[in-house]
C-alpha cells in the first residue's frame, strides 16, 4: 500500500516541471550547469513582455499572444513545442503530427507560410491604395526606405551571421511583421523568435524612433511644406491596381507572390464592393484568429536554448539599426524629391516608406503638424506607407530567391 503510494508520488515528481528543469538534454547541451535557470529567465522575460503589452500598451494585439507563447514553450516537461522538428530544411510532418504538442501543430501554419499570407489578406482588405495611385511617385519613397534591409544585411554578416541569417535579420528593416516572419521561417527558423520580437517591438516604438531622425535630417522650412491635394481616384483605377500589381510583381519576383497576392486579393475584395461579407471576415474575424495563432506560435520559437544567446542581443541591436537607416533612407529620398520638384514634396512623408502601417504615416502627420499646425500630411504619407508594404514584400522575394 505504502509502496504504491510512494511510487505514484515519485512518478508524479519525475514527470513534474521541477525535475524537467534539470533533465532537459538540449538545455544542458547548450548551457551546461546553468541549464535549470534558463527556462526561469525566459519565464521572467515573458512576464515582462506581458506587462509591456497590458500595462504599457505596446502593440498588445500581438505582443500579448507572443509573450504568452514564450511562457508556454519554456515551461519544463510540457512538451508543447519542439524547435528541433522544424530546424531542418525538409520537415518531417509525420513526426510532428505523431509526437508534437499543441504549439507544434499551430506552428505548422507559420512553417508553411499560411499565417503571414492570411494576415496580408486582412491588411489588404483594410488598405486604401488611393493615395498611392493618386501620387505614384510615393512608390519611390517606399523603395528608398528598404535601404535599411540591405544595410542591415551587411551589418549582420560583419557581426558573424551566415548569409541566410543575415537576410532574415535585415528584413526587420522592412518594418513589416508578417514579411519578417515569412522570410525568417524559411531562412533562419532558429532565430525566428528573436526576429519577431525585435520587429514587433520596434514597430511599437516607431513613434519614438522616427521623429528625432526626421527632424535631424530636415529643416523647418522643409517640414512646413504643404502638399497639393491629391486627385480623386476613380473606382476602375482602384480595381485595376491590385490585379496589375499582382501579375507584374509575381512575374518578376515569384517568391513575393504569396504575400502580395493575398494583400491584393484582400484589397480587390474591398474595392469591388460586391463581397462585403468576405471583406468583413477577412479584416476582422479571420485576421483576429490568425493573429492569435501567429502570436502564440511565434512566441513558441523563443525557447531558452535558442533565445538566450548573444545572437539575440545582436539581432535586437541590428533591428534598431535597420529601422533607423530605413527611416533615414526614406527621409533623404524625400529631400531629393523636395529639391527636384522645387519644394512641392514634404520630405517628412519619406519616413512613412518603412511599412509599419499606419503608424509610420501617423508619425509623419504628427511631426508635420508640429512644424505647421494646419498641415495634414496623413493622406500623403499613406502613399509611401502602403508602397513600403509592397516594397518590403519585393525585397523579401529577392532575398528568398537568392538564399532559399
Amino acid at each position, binding site marked *: 500500500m505504502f509502496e504504491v503510494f510512494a511510487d505514484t508520488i515519485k512518478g508524479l515528481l519525475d514527470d513534474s516541471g521541477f525535475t524537467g528543469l534539470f533533465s532537459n538534454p538540449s538545455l544542458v547541451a547548450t548551457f551546461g550547469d546553468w541549464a535549470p535557470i534558463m527556462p526561469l529567465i525566459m519565464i521572467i522575460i515573458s512576464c515582462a513582455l506581458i506587462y509591456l503589452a497590458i500595462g504599457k500598451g505596446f502593440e498588445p494585439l500581438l505582443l500579448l499572444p507572443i509573450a504568452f507563447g514564450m511562457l508556454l514553450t519554456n515551461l519544463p516537461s510540457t512538451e508543447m513545442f519542439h524547435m528541433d522538428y522544424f530546424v531542418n530544411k525538409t520537415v518531417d510532418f509525420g513526426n510532428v503530427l505523431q509526437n508534437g504538442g499543441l504549439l507544434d501543430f499551430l506552428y505548422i501554419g507559420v512553417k508553411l507560410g499560411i499565417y503571414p499570407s492570411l494576415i496580408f489578406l486582412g491588411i489588404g482588405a483594410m488598405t486604401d491604395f488611393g493615395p498611392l495611385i493618386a501620387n505614384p511617385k510615393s512608390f519611390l519613397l517606399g523603395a528608398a526606405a528598404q535601404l535599411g534591409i540591405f544595410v542591415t544585411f551587411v551589418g549582420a554578416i560583419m557581426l558573424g551571421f551566415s548569409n541566410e541569417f543575415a*537576410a532574415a535579420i535585415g528584413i526587420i528593416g522592412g518594418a513589416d511583421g508578417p514579411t519578417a516572419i515569412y522570410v525568417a521561417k524559411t531562412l533562419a527558423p532558429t532565430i525566428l523568435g528573436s526576429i519577431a520580437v525585435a520587429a514587433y517591438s520596434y514597430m511599437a516604438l516607431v513613434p519614438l524612433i522616427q521623429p528625432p531622425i526626421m527632424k535631424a535630417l530636415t529643416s523647418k522650412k522643409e517640414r512646413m511644406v504643404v502638399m497639393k491635394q491629391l486627385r480623386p481616384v476613380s473606382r476602375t*483605377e482602384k480595381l485595376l491596381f491590385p490585379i496589375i*500589381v499582382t501579375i507584374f510583381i509575381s512575374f518578376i519576383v515569384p517568391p513575393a507572390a504569396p504575400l502580395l497576392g493575398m494583400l491584393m486579393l484582400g484589397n480587390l475584395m474591398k474595392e469591388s464592393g460586391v463581397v462585403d461579407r468576405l471583406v468583413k471576415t477577412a479584416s476582422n474575424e479571420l485576421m483576429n484568429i490568425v493573429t492569435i495563432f501567429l502570436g502564440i506560435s511565434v512566441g513558441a520559437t523563443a525557447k531558452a536554448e535558442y533565445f538566450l544567446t548573444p545572437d539575440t542581443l545582436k539581432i535586437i541591436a541590428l533591428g534598431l539599426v535597420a529601422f533607423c537607416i530605413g527611416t533615414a533612407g526614406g527621409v533623404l529620398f524625400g529631400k531629393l524629391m523636395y529639391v527636384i520638384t522645387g519644394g512641392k514634396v514634404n520630405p517628412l512623408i519619406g519616413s512613412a516608406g518603412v511599412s509599419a502601417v499606419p503608424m509610420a504615416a*501617423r508619425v509623419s502627420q504628427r511631426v508635420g503638424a508640429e512644424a505647421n499646425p494646419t498641415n495634414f500630411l496623413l493622406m500623403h504619407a499613406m502613399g509611401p506607407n502602403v508602397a513600403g508594404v509592397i516594397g518590403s514584400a*519585393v525585397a523579401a522575394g529577392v532575398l528568398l530567391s537568392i538564399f532559399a
Partner: protein
Amino acid sequence: MIEKLLTMRYNYNIVRFYYMMLNIHVKSNIKRRMNMDWGFTLSVVFVGLVVVFSVLIALVLMCVVIGKIFAAINKKKNGIVKEKPAPEVKQPAKATVINATPAPVVESGIGDDVVAAISAAIACITGDKGGITIKSIKRAKGSRPVWNTASVMENTRPF
C-alpha cells in the same frame, strides 16, 4: 616597497591578459572578415536595391499611364457636360467680391461680419485699454478655412 612592486606586477599581468584577449578577439574578427565574401555580399545588396527600385519605378510608370488614360476618358465625358453650368457659377462669385470691398480696413476679400468678429476677439483679449487700430486684415497664406480644418481633424482623429 615590495608590496608596491607586487601590485604593479599584478596590474601588469591583468593588462597583459586583456591585451591577449583583445588580440585574440581582433584576430578572430579579422579571420571572420577574411572569410566574409565581400563581393557576394555587396552584389546581394546591389541586386536587391536595383530590383526593388526598378520594380517600383515600373509600377510608378504604370500608374502614371493608367492615370493619364483615365484622365483622358474623364475629360471626354465631362467636356460635354461642363459647358452649361459654367456661366451660372460666375455671377454669384463676382457678387461676393463686390460685397467684400467696402470693408474699410480689410485688404483682401473678407466679409464685414468676419471683420467684426476679429475686432471683437482682439478687443476681448486686449481688454478696455483702447487705442488699438486694426490696420489690415489679411488671409494667412496657405492656410485652409477653419471649418475645413475642423472637418479634417474630425476625420483624421481615429488615426
